[in-house]
């Protein structure tokens, strides 16, 4: 079977033929006749400039195809064709392009949510799997900074310059990094997934860069590769992946974020997005962040600069000599009343990210906290998850 392609299409039933996309497209990939506005698959480079300007949302449509629809075919459309089903793929969604192994990794990471996860209602629509193993995007290392002051915990903040390559990532999405070389069996390495730690408009607004938070694992092929990168090195990345662990765009939403270690990456992205996007009052954010000590807590310095009014911070240490040992679940229980109020608030969205070990403790704490307001945690959690308000990614 030929390689599958992703094609940008426009829904003729929803489009009102205002031609704003056509005028916005910087490379002339969009044209129209009396019937339809259509995208030329040979020209479109997925730069996404046309997406925000469309007044209808009809522009945000994609099909996975073997053979792209021609302009002539698109001009004849009265409605969008169904996504074709391919013989070797069970599901005919965006997932078609997602490598089954990557899909498995994502599902594995989200297993702690306890069931089928839905994205927040007001989340932006993510772009998925623009770059696959056969067509990775090449990005250049712009910086590689050590975030911790603890030799046993080497956590890096790595910034990639993506140049002119469009890589539209949303906060909470992950990208895959493909380490060079082969495994002991002589096969190319699999990709490893990392949450981006920057908001959608870049590490710096308007700069085309993305950042990752990576902890060196002594035996980890990919983490050692990443942590040892130097400025100017070229890295192959794939993705973006993930369509549920996303933040609500609704400024009134309250984000309750619970994380440890590099699980702070998406929380950092969420916080920066809020700082940049929400001008007036917001629903607020609460962070429970666990580490061994201040020295091994990534982003300890920058966090101190985020005002408490935006982000209510609880930094929790398990090996701080000056304090009794505490884990995030302990701190959750210390704040039982405040957290209980958050749990019953329909504007609260919960995000849990970090080491799998934390899950059990957090579950126990949440069960206690929920019962404080007479609720059964499991029911509450399942309801929140169905509403798109409960998200877990652990590893």
């Amino acid at each position, binding site marked *: 079977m030929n390689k599958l392609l992703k094609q940008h299409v426009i829904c003729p039933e929803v489009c009102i033929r205002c031609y704003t996309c056509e005028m916005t497209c910087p490379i002339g990939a969009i044209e129209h006749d009396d019937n339809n506005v259509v995208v030329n698959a040979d020209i479109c480079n997925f730069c996404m400039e046309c997406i925000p300007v469309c007044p209808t949302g009809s522009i945000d449509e994609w099909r996975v195809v073997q053979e792209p629809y021609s302009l002539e075919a698109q001009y004849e459309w009265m409605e969008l064709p169904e996504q074709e089903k391919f013989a070797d793929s069970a599901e005919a969604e965006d997932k078609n392009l997602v490598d089954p192994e990557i899909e498995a990794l994502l599902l594995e990471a989200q297993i702690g949510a306890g069931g089928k996860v839905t994205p927040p209602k007001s989340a932006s*629509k993510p772009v998925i799997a623009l770059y696959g193993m056969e067509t990775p995007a090449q990005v250049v290392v712009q910086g590689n900074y050590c975030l911790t002051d603890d030799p046993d915990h080497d956590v890096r903040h790595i910034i990639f310059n993506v140049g002119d390559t469009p890589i539209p990532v949303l906060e909470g999405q992950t990208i895959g990094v493909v380490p060079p070389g082969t495994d002991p069996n002589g096969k190319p390495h699999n990709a490893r997934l990392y949450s981006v730690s920057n908001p959608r*408009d870049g590490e710096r607004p308007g700069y085309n860069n993305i950042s990752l938070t990576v902890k060196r694992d002594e035996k980890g092929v990919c983490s050692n590769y990443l942590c040892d990168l130097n400025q100017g090195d070229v890295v192959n990345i794939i993705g973006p992946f993930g369509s549920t662990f996303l933040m609500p765009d609704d400024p009134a939403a309250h984000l309750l974020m619970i994380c440890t270690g590099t699980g702070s990456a998406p929380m950092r992205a969420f916080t920066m997005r809020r700082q940049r996007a929400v001008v007036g009052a917001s629903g607020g954010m609460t962070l429970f962040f666990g580490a061994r000590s201040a020295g091994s807590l990534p982003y300890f310095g920058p966090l101190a600069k985020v005002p408490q009014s935006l982000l209510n911070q609880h930094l929790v240490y398990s090996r701080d000599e000056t304090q009794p040992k505490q884990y995030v679940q302990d701190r959750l229980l210390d704040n039982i009343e405040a957290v209980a109020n958050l749990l019953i608030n329909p504007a609260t969205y919960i995000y849990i990210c970090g080491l799998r070990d934390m899950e059990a403790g957090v579950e126990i704490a949440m069960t206690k906290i929920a019962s404080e307001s007479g609720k059964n945690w499991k029911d509450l959690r399942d309801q929140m998850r169905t509403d798109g308000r409960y998200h877990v990614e652990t590893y």
Partner: protein
Amino acid sequence: MTILDVNYDSLIPNNVGLSQDRKVLKALEKWHPGYISWWNDLIPKEFQESMVYLRTAVSVDPKGWTKFDYVKMPEYRWGILLAPQKEERTIPCGEHFGEPAWQEVPGEYRNMLKRMIVIQGDTEPGSVEQQRFLGLTAPSLYDMRNLFQVNVEEGRHLWAMVYLLQKYFGKDGREEADDMLVRSSGSEEAPRMLGAFNEETPDWLSFFMFTYFTDRDGKMQLESLAQSGFDPLSRTCRFMITEEAHHMFVGETGVGRTIQATIEAMNAHGITDPYDINKVRDLGVIDLPTIQKKLNLHYSLSLDLFGQEVSTNAANAFNSGIKGRFMEQRIDDDHRLASDTYIVRTIKDSKVVAEEVPALTAINMRLRDDYVRDASGGVGRWNRMIAKAGVEFEMRLPDEAFHRQIGVFSEVNADTEGNLISLESWEQQKKNWLPTKGDGDYIQSLMKPCVKPGEYASWIAPPRMGIDNKPGDFEYVKLHMA
């Protein structure tokens, strides 16, 4: 806040270096209080105080003009934004074809240019005035938000034209800018300049028809002005077009959703005859024949906006490079039209005949023909919805001779097919073609506000998709409850 405290650089998002331009800044400082008081007097107070989920343009790149947030309308940041200057842009039409585009007003065309900007500018506040009371009967918070989005952007378009007048036309430019706030839609003494902008917008179906037909005309006019050899006008209009798209969206989907509610209700109650008007109206929806009548009215009014079919003014504007044709750069001809001809329908001996006239004088007609083609696209889509529901009915654009006040057809009476008929016959039949007082009363009886998030009036279907990826039950307006 006194006017001295207004920091125009932060108050007015702009990419024209406003803070350095003392002259324009001074003129705007004088004009701005009048504008704010015009706005405050216009829109009912409870809406001025409400938080509306609006899109504000803060810059002209695609990401900069789609910033959504809750704002109170009087605090909306009306910006002055021009599309980026294209290097070495040349005049795209007329006798100066190929010469460098003017960055300053060419003296010989000063008055013509000013008049064109004034007419365009006058329509912008006109439509806000026409729609001022619609907020009170919004069929949902979603629709209310869309109305206010259209209103604030028409307000911004007025700013855009006022900026050009103040920047490039000196004292009389400033006077013209002031007059924009003096004239008022439907006024006896000082009406708006174009007829369609003095008509009432009594109900939401009229609003949707207006934003479908009249804003689509507005878009065509802007497209032609975007072809102007006067570069600041071209750049201003190019950016305005991008906002106009949302207004057309409101219109096309608004009419579509009205039709959808009707055919769904008919099907749910097993009504197959769309002309069984009383039965359909009993369901709290607007019957298709009445929707067709509204369409006839608004379409014919919008055709009048194109002016005389054969016009020396239009010829002069094209020939001097002040105003181009729709998509001028895509038209494959010499862009001068010195010897070309164009077919125009006209009346000769009480008959409609086709006549070949110099293309230069038929500029208006050509734009109108382009408009008719463009406008029929949405009608086709509405018909597909009706057909899909299995209802036997087709919406149609009436003939261009029908119900005209301007141009050759204003002299005669024609039915919707374009057959010329006697005045007597017209008087007898017009109730079948145009909304009657009874139709208006019925529609008015449905105009009851729905202000709970996710609630929609009986006569209109919820949207397929919300604004800014938000769901239909999002609280698009946080109403101020006094």
